[in-house]
């Protein structure tokens, strides 16, 4: 767990501009946090939707750009996970919520994207992209699983 004045903590506070006077009023701070969460979720959907549309409309030339967009999304997800873990807070809902509409929409967009990629590549390249995709999903799953463990740390705290 990062201490309040660790390099990580100072860095993320600088990136998030969390010491700005904008956050002085607690309700305003609360609203901005909610707005940030909405924007973050929208960007996750948006990147997948744009990437899926781009490979079907733009064809092969669009693939490198979509990979760049998706990579940035993964980095954002990693920062999100690292920050919540540093505060000993998990962000995942219960397992029973795993198949919520938002998850199904994301999976649908991902399938659409990879179908578009496969359609535009030679078989060898399609295999490479598929392998990279599986690797990427594996890394994401590991990050999410790690976050779930981080959340469970709250229950392991000793008294005294």
């Amino acid at each position, binding site marked *: 767990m990062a201490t309040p004045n660790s390099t990580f903590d100072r860095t993320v506070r600088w990136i998030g501009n969390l010491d700005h006077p904008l956050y002085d009023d*607690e*309700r305003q701070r609360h609203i901005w946090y909610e707005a940030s969460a909405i924007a973050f979720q929208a960007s996750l959907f948006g990147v997948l939707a744009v990437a899926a549309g781009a490979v079907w409309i733009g064809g092969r030339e669009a693939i490198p750009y979509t990979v760049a967009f998706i990579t940035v999304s993964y980095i954002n997800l990693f920062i999100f996970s690292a920050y919540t873990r540093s505060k000993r807070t998990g962000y995942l809902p219960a397992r029973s919520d795993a198949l919520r509409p938002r998850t199904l929409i994301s999976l649908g967009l991902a399938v659409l994207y990879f179908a578009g990629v496969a359609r535009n590549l030679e078989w060898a390249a399609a295999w490479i992209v598929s392998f990279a995709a599986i690797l990427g999903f594996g890394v994401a799953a590991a990050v999410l699983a790690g976050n779930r463990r981080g959340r469970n740390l709250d229950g392991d705290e000793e008294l005294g």
Partner: protein
Amino acid sequence: MARTKSTGRTNQVRPYRRRAEMTQAQLAGNVGVSRQTVVSIEAGDYAPSVYLAMRLASIFDTTVEALFDEEANT
């Protein structure tokens, strides 16, 4: 788990403020928040932090329970 959402909750901040003959802006200035925050608290749209709740209780010379405990105020 107890409900922690603020929306739809009632409180006694407005009656106490009126009794103290304060405007929302004056109260906001006294506790160090924006007037809009006071408006939202009075409307039950925003649940203040424990520190703000204590400042409000202190301003009105009462307790946090008297201001925000729904069961005590029904």
